[in-house]
């Protein structure tokens, strides 16, 4: 378990030693701030519902930038050989890397908590729905990170890793638009597979088992695939 933290720490310091962390942090927060202002100005209500929707949309674009190098860079520089010949299990490598990116992502979320204080100061927001909204957006980002780590483990090229995760995230995010042309069980499946309806519930204060299971099983599924993906044993 200590080794998981050692890897997570290494990942986190790697973020902060390259400009990408600062660019992503500043860019994300600035864009969020602009949208926060616009949404509050237009809706004139003390709710973060639409802000979460915008955050979700932005994360579809941002998270692949955070995760693209996690495994592909190690493959490119050969450091993966160092990790995989050290006395550490592949599971611990995957968990450590996931934990590192999760902490960085959580930092972004924590910085957006200021929006709650702003609307609390000017109005009477529904605290419960804001709390569940933050939980929902955090779960969704965590799911996106797991997808990004998975695609990063497929290739030694960061660009290919990023584009593959964009493809998957777009499919999940925009799948709601296909439901119009579908009907019956097919529609239900596509609706459940997409992210849209799940976060929607969280932003209005609803925590349902189906939504939580959706995110958690998605995360676990991606991490297990990553775990087996980095195993050289498969193509002997």
């Amino acid at each position, binding site marked *: 378990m*200590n*080794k998981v933290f*050692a*890897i997570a720490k*290494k990942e986190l*310091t*790697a973020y902060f*030693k*390259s400009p990408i962390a600062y660019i992503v942090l500043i860019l994300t927060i600035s864009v969020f701030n602009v949208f926060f202002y616009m949404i509050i100005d237009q809706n004139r209500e003390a709710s973060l519902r639409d802000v979460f929707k915008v955050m979700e949309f932005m994360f579809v674009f941002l998270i692949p930038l955070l995760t693209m190098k996690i495994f592909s860079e190690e493959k490119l*520089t*050969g*450091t*993966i*050989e*160092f*990790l*995989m*010949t*050290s*006395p*550490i*299990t592949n599971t611990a490598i995957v968990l450590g890397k996931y934990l590192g990116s999760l902490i960085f992502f959580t930092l972004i979320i924590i910085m957006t908590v200021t929006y709650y204080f702003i609307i609390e100061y000017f109005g009477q927001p529904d605290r419960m729905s804001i709390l569940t909204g933050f939980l929902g957006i955090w779960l969704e980002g965590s799911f996106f990170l797991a997808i990004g780590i998975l695609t990063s483990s497929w290739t030694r090229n960061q660009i290919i890793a990023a584009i593959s995760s964009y493809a998957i995230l777009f499919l999940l995010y925009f799948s709601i638009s296909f439901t119009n042309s579908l009907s019956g069980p097919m529609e239900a499946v596509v609706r459940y597979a997409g992210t849209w309806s799940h976060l929607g519930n969280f932003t209005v204060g609803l925590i349902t088992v189906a939504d939580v299971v959706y995110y958690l099983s998605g995360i676990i599924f991606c991490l297990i695939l990553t775990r087996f993906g980095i195993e*050289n*044993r498969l193509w*002997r």
Partner: protein
Amino acid sequence: MILAQNVTKYFGRFQALKDVSFEIKKGEIVGFLGRNGAGKTTLMRILTSYLPASSGKVVIGGDDVEKNSLAIRKKIGYLPETPPLYSNMTVNDYLKFAAEIKDVPARERRNRINEVLEECNIGEVRDKIIGVLSRGYKQRVGIAQAIINKPELLILDEPTSGLDPIQNLQIRKLIKNLEYERTVILSTHILSEIEQIAHRVLIIRSGRIIVDKSLDMLLKDYSDDQCAESTLEEVFVKLHSETSEENNE
């Protein structure tokens, strides 16, 4: 210490290793020789459990590489062909990270890092970012990483490439110093180096071991029919021209 039996490795339809068998005893220094692409790196990767063999068996210190790879990895220090370094870390941070994931107890880490910094003669760059170091320094940081957990078995893939003659000498001395404590396997293109440190050589050609002899024996065998003391280089060239003739038949 190491027992390899009929190790074979395919990459797709290409056969990189053909029925490789050998035994290495504790405390031996063994040189893997061979031209580029002969299969030295593949063999080393199988020994370190980085790559699985297609068939055959490798046992290191009583543990099967296939079944017990985690136990094997605790015993091994490995320097791959390109030193596996994180270019944005400092030497000190990198060695600390290596010590952490290689089971060096927390209390001993600081001491152990100082020891390897000294042994590899890289103390003066400990706070520098690895990315800005010269090839020679990077190579020595790579070696420092490999010996940080005092492994019983040290596997070095071309440890002296990119070093100047003085550093070369230092590394040879370092490997010599480890001699009585542990087993060392190294590969190199510089044959005169092997002559100076190895007890035994394995010459690999196109995935096959064509020579497995102690160095003295090998040199003696080949000097007899020439009536003069031959160098390893002459033997190496001779062996490779012989076998290519065989293949042409």
